[in-house]
């Protein structure tokens, strides 16, 4: 259960971050969603050996993190524990691609290491931008934005209900597992059988819960469609955020700022 506890603690942390009021929170979720998506596409559009040109793009997550006052500790912890898949699959690059690409003094760096570093860089950039977006917007507002961007409400309602009942269900599950732990007097690990039985009874409760929630919805006139009247209005500030960032991303994509700065630093002009 330790993994559940720690993951729920993380969700709780994110949820609290998302419920604050910072300059980032005040920007329309649609503007944030679109710029973040554009940012991710921009990051991923670089070739596999392009490491340096990626670095200037860090400005986007950095500004989000600053505007949203997102603790760096939060982002760093997430980066460390998240998704071993990319790290693992990317690890084959240095093994497979050993052609020297870069020589730094006596050190010869192979193309594989460069592309692996590029993968890690992509990982850091996209994950930190996504986390900053969610920490500065909240699932609820992300869904409102998605809905206004044309995502079917059947889907966004599912996301919201899932998020809402996750908290209830995990509490219920935690109570059950505590009760089990108390009765199983010291025997630690949980076998598949016990887990199956516990999941089974949690599932039954879940199904009952669905029925009760449905009854409660029906009592208040539910007919299969969840409607909202909370309007989103795109103000000048939001439009500026969107257009400004799209411009910055386009400029960074078009001009290799890192190369330019590097050339200046090493004394060469163009």
């Amino acid at each position, binding site marked *: 259960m330790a993994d559940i506890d720690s993951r729920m603690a993380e969700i709780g942390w994110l949820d609290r971050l998302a419920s604050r009021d910072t300059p980032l929170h005040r920007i329309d979720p649609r503007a944030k969603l679109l710029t973040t998506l554009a940012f991710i596409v921009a990051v991923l559009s670089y070739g596999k050996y392009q490491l340096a*040109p990626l670095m200037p793009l860090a400005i986007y997550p950095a500004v989000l993190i600053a*505007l949203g006052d997102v603790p760096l500790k939060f982002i760093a912890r997430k980066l460390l524990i998240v998704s071993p898949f990319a790290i693992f699959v990317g690890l084959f690059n240095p093994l497979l691609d050993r052609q020297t690409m870069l020589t730094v*003094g006596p050190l010869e760096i192979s193309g594989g290491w460069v592309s692996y570093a590029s993968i890690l860089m992509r990982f850091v950039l996209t994950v930190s931008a996504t986390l900053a977006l969610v920490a500065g917007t909240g699932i609820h507002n992300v869904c409102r934005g998605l809905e206004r961007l044309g995502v079917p409400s059947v889907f966004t*309602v599912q996301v919201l209900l899932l998020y809402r009942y996750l908290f209830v269900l995990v509490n219920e599950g935690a109570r059950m597992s505590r009760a089990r732990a108390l009765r199983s007097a010291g025997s630690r690990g949980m076998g598949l059988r016990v887990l199956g039985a516990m999941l089974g009874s949690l599932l039954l409760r879940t*199904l009952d819960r669905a029925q009760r929630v449905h009854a409660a919805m029906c009592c208040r006139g539910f007919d299969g469609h969840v409607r909202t009247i909370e309007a989103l209005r795109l103000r000048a500030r939001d439009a500026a955020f969107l257009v400004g960032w799209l411009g910055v991303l386009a400029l960074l994509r078009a001009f290799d*700022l890192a190369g330019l700065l590097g050339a200046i630093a090493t004394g*060469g002009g163009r």
Partner: protein
Amino acid sequence: MHMSDALISPAVGGTMWVAAAGLVGYSARKMRHCLDSSRVPLMGVMGAFVFAAQMVNFTIPGTGSSGHLGGGLLLAILLGPSAGLITIASILTVQAMLFADGGLLALGSNIINMGFFPCFIAYPLVYLPLVGKKPGRGRIAIAATLAAVLGLQLGALGVVTETTMSGIADLPFAKFLLLMLPIHLAIGLVEGLATTAVVSFVWQARPDVLELADSPGDGRGRLGSVAVCLLVAAIVTGGVVSWFASTRPDGLEWSVAGVTGKAELAESTDGLHGALKRAQERTALLPDYDFAKTQEPARGGQAPAPEESSLGQWFAPSAGTTVSGLLGGGITLILVFLIGWALRRRAASAPSA
């Protein structure tokens, strides 16, 4: 087996996004037609249930590795394929947002890999025919296990195909597939066991829930459209696989050749690199550093130029990754950090509106 943003190219990610968006839209439209309003909360809490269950890792007996419930097939069985797909898509979306599992661009691929295959292929083509009209314990077990294994194998194939087509990771298609399929066979068996356990549990305790899933127009009696789906999927995967097979007979061999044959590299003295090198020598700020030899000229000189390397040329930067570039990158990172820090100070001191 979440695909990650870091490994995907915009072209692949975008294509899968479009496919996933079409699929979610299609499912949503279908649900609109046959919407029994009690399905809305049922899908919501079932999504939360699977999400919570996925957070529990249990050890796979005999292997020492751990697995967790994937849930796509389970949701299709309990809710029907359309509702199942929407629910698994919502799970993946929340995971992408909360845990950065996968990523926003890779979300499309993940919905296809973990939603489409179990809900629209494994469920209607394997589970339903096998379980038949009168389910029993044994039938449920066999059907769920086979369907889970098939769904996961297809999902793993999807992951491998998308990763290789993106061209960021060097792991060649065949080797990657050889790595992924056996792992996912084990995971599929466990998933099958877990799905069996849950479904037969529900079947005994709450048979009414299972009846809800096969409301007309959803899954059953739609074999025609499912067959078309399958055909398209088969053509696409077949095409992709044969393309890879023909262009890279053995990726590992090819890259080993690259290592052994290319010990020496001609120093490029042309154009910008040359100019920069001269400039650098003059200023001698970083005297010992050498500039990059990009991969391209080296690979181009190799005898049978494989398709991939010319593809790589397409995407590879003209400037490549150079020491000075990295230095510039480092400088920008420092600048970025300073800007972020200054902004945060300002934001912190400004009164919140």
